[in-house]
């Protein structure tokens, strides 16, 4: 009886993770499309060159800068906001997994998942090896 309940719980967790991933990707794609429309309407005729690497402006590198630019409806910042949502999707999945393992009282894997989450957040905070 108990084994069956665990299987059912795991199945429900998997269903929820599937929904979470799908929603994240869809939301990101919608925001990127909106940003693309703004960007192409305003800058579509300008010339561009990606042959030389320069690095992005500081406001396109930080979460705060991206939010500020997106609120001002800057096309490139809106696209970058969509990319942030996309980036947040796997992170949300890991957060969700911490909860799922905790519900199963699987403390070993709560620890493992928290370790993965720490690396992810550290990289997003600008950490590097």
């Amino acid at each position, binding site marked *: 009886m108990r084994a069956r309940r665990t299987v059912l719980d795991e*199945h429900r967790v998997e269903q929820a*993770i599937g929904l979470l991933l799908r929603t994240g990707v869809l939301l990101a*794609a919608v925001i990127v499309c909106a940003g693309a429309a703004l960007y192409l309407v305003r800058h579509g005729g300008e010339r561009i060159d990606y042959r030389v*690497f320069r690095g992005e402006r500081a406001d396109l590198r930080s979460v705060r800068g991206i939010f500020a630019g997106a609120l001002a409806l800057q096309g490139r910042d809106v*696209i970058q906001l969509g990319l942030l949502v996309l980036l947040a999707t796997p992170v949300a999945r890991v957060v969700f997994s911490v909860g799922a393992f905790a519900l199963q009282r699987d403390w*070993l894997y709560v620890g493992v998942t928290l370790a993965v989450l720490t690396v992810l957040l550290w990289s997003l905070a600008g950490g590097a*090896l």
Partner: protein
Amino acid sequence: MTVAGFSVIVFLGSTAAGFLGALSGLGGGVVVVPLLTLLLGVDIHYAAGAALISVIATSSGAAAAYVREGYSNLRIGMLLEVATTLGAVGGATLATHVGASGIAIVFGLVLLGSAALSMRRHVEQQGLGPTDRLATRLRLDGSYPGPGGPQRYRARRVPAAASLMALAGILSGLLGIGSGAVKVLALDAAMGLPFKVSTTTSNFMIGVTAAASAGVYLRRGYIDPGLAMPVMLGVLLGSLAGARALSRLTSGVLRAVFAVLIAALGIEMIASGLGGRI
């Protein structure tokens, strides 16, 4: 080139790359980076940043379908993600110190390796396999839905798999790819998992690995919205179409054609890197 013209060309090219990536099972990143660098002359750092974004999109999109089928092993995936994410941050850091030519040469070598791996004959483990103390203690054994009810399987050689996963992470961060080929190798050849479990668990891990690299890329200013936008939308669309076509096409000859194509791209990348053209 104007922004509008460039966006349309990159979008169409990325759609084709996503389609090929899904059909060959190698993923869109592996095809889109050579396309951007060799054909359109984009700096490989920008190309890798945009490819990473597309890898997260396709992996999450595909994983949404796979996870629900119940094939992927969440414990194995999460445990090995410790190795892949650390590797990815290391690889992404390395990318900021290595010149474009060096990255192109490593990319070419990885393409050649992927071509060879895709031709590898898969030998499915017969029976349950031996018990492994570490894998048992970590509760990695599992089951997947088979035709006659749940099929059980055992995992083994955890340290070997973790080492391969760290390598997969480094390559992912350095080159902007999902490293699916190396991940499947770790799960299937090292751990001895059933093939279907290996491929779905690998796919499930790719998004988290790529997110770890993409964090470093974003903070370093390697992710350009103008380039990432058409690449992400194109690869996502192409890979969805590719996954749909895949259920109607059975590989074999197709696989050989892709292997030759990928190997040719690999040689071209190495030549361009050595010649200083990238």
